[in-house]
């Protein structure tokens, strides 16, 4: 079945620093979504990317969809303690198909 791999699994970041988490697939994706889950909470939808090479920004978060639509990245600048949580990518191979979630990147911020 479709596999969506996320790296790294864990990310320890000093407050104020930048970091990037990656989502990779061996097959071409129709679209990709990013979700954030705070500790003890539920996943919250952040964004959807559909077009090849698409870049979207939400304040300090920058999301990118690869040109080949096989990978995506989330870059966070000037990390804050509010960024703590697990970030999941989720993808479909075909429009309207079932979502496959990556294993997530758990972000820990050192003040």
């Amino acid at each position: 079945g479709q596999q969506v791999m996320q790296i790294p699994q864990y990310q320890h970041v000093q407050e104020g620093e930048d970091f990037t988490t990656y989502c990779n697939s061996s097959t071409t994706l129709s679209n990709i979504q990013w979700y954030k889950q705070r500790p003890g909470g539920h996943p919250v939808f952040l964004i959807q990317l559909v077009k090849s090479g698409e870049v979207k920004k939400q304040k300090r978060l920058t999301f990118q969809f690869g040109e080949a639509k096989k990978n995506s990245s989330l870059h966070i600048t000037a990390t804050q303690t509010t960024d703590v949580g697990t970030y999941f990518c989720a993808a479909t191979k075909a429009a309207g198909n079932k979502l496959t979630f990556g294993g997530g990147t758990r972000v820990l911020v050192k003040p």
Partner: protein
Amino acid sequence: DAGITQSPRHKVTETGTPVTLRCHQTENHRYMYWYRQDPGHGLRLIHYSYGVKDTDKGEVSDGYSVSRSKTEDFLLTLESATSSQTSVYFCAISELDRVNEQYFGPGTRLTVT
């Protein structure tokens, strides 16, 4: 947050007993989903519904059944609970034209002893 509730929020049950989890939405969204979340596995789709009485299997459907008799309610039943079904279960909903923009409920932590 979207109007999604799950009940119960916590449950401990014994191996071999049937268990039913309920998801209730007030958003009138067409699609509803059941996921399980386990360490190292992210979220895995169990079953989903694309309308009243319309359901389909997900990635890990063995040992689970679902029913949707009303738009607002989606039930997940573990026919005979096993320890491998100890997990956190999330319900999610989405609109017809934005199926991948899913909104999750607060989750149910199920422990099977």
